[in-house]
Every structure is written in C-alpha cells, then in structure tokens.
C-alpha cells in the first residue's frame, strides 16, 4: 500500500443505503467482502459476499476487481 493510499477517503454507508445499492446493481457490478472470521461468515453473511478475513486482505486484494465499487463489512 502506498503512502498516498492512507489519505484516500473511504465512505461509510448505512445498511439501508447498501441494501438499496445492492438491489439496484446486478451481480458482477460490485465487490462485496466479508472481513470477519470463517465461523462468523458461516453463521450468517450477506448473499454473494466473499469471505476474506481482515488478516488475509493484503495478500488477497488481487481477488477483487479494482474497477468496481467495493463494499466491506
């Protein structure tokens, strides 16, 4: 990660705003990432969410399409 990346703004959206976004978009138009642990994911996750535990993110960024909006929870 470059030093300038630390200064890029990251928006926080409400769950309702995210619900509207997901309802409007088609599959493949966004990245949806669950950064919790596997057992938490297994108990319940947003439909279509990819599991990338937060500790693994730096090594798995290539799995996300950087041209698409990314939602993380």
């Amino acid at each position, binding site marked *: 990660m470059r030093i300038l990346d630390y200064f890029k703004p990251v928006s926080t*959206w409400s769950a309702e705003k995210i619900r509207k976004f997901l*309802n409007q978009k088609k599959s493949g138009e966004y990245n949806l990432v669950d950064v919790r642990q596997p057992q938490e*994911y297994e108990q319940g996750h947003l439909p*279509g969410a990819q599991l990338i535990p937060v500790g693994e993110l730096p090594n798995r960024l290539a799995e996300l399409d950087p041209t698409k909006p990314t939602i993380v929870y």
Partner: protein
Amino acid sequence: MKGGIKAWDGFVAEGIPEAGMAYFPPGTHLEEMIGLAWLLEDGSRKFYESLAETIEEQEAKGIFQSLKRSEERHKTTLLKMYEEFLGKPPASGFPATMISGQPAGDVMEGGMLVNEALKWSEGKPLEEILELSMSLETNSYDLYLKMVQKTEDDSLKEVFKILSEEEKKHLEQLTSLFVKKR
C-alpha cells in the same frame, strides 16, 4: 457498512463459502448446469405445490399457489436459456438424462430435501413457513451470486447472472408477502 452485519435488517445466507457448490462442481457442462438448476427449481415448486394442496386457509393457499407459479416461470426461463445458449431445445428426458449422480430424493433451492421441508412445515404457522422459504431462497441467491464470481466460462457466468437476478426478484416477492403477514 456502518454497524457491520449487526446493522443489517434482513435475511442472511448461511454456510461456508463453498456451500451448495457441490451441486455445480468444476467441469460441469453448461447443459448439465442448467439441468441441475432446473431440478432445484422443480424441488421448490413441489414444496409450494404440496403446501397449496394441504393447507386449508384460503389466503395461505393462494400465497403458495403464487409461489408455485413463480417456480414454474423460473423453470421456463431455464429452458429458454438452454435453447439460447445451446442452440436447440432440451432433448426428451431432460434433465435426468444429462445429469450424473442425481441426489436421492427431491432437493429444493437452498439444498434442503423437499420431504424434510414439508415434514418440518406440518402444523407450523404461515409466517414460519414463509420464513423457512425466505431462508432457503436467500441461500439459493447466495449460491448463484458466488457461482458468478467463481465460474470462468463466460456462458456459465451469464447463466448464473440470470439465475441470480431471478432469485433476487423472487426474494422481493417473498419479502413483501412476509411483511404483509407479520
């Protein structure tokens, strides 16, 4: 997402990341994939049809008849996709003749056996049965979305995109029914 998943007021999918993908193993051909999806939709149709026949309360009966018709439309969509992607209608005996290793017993979307879902539903109030249906359909939606990400074949990706959009609409229908009955 502000508040994380605890802030999410809605149904969530359950299971490990690979849940349900056993129905669509790597290397499965397009026609078999469509056949497998058709079988799952037909399983859900049988579930709703059985409930419509056995439940006496008229409004509930009407709801399950409507859900059964939705599943029939999904099956029709799959047959149209088969013809569009493969350039010919399915052969007679579809989908049994093209699927190897079929599950024992009818399976519905979400991976539950139809007879188990029906047994569970006996004597349950309508709201709980709708909740079960939503939970299973959410898992089905989750599976199709993940298959869009996982599949590398463009035709298969397109099939799963269409299926996920159909499930999204179906979930919206179920959600509005569920909210009305609450």
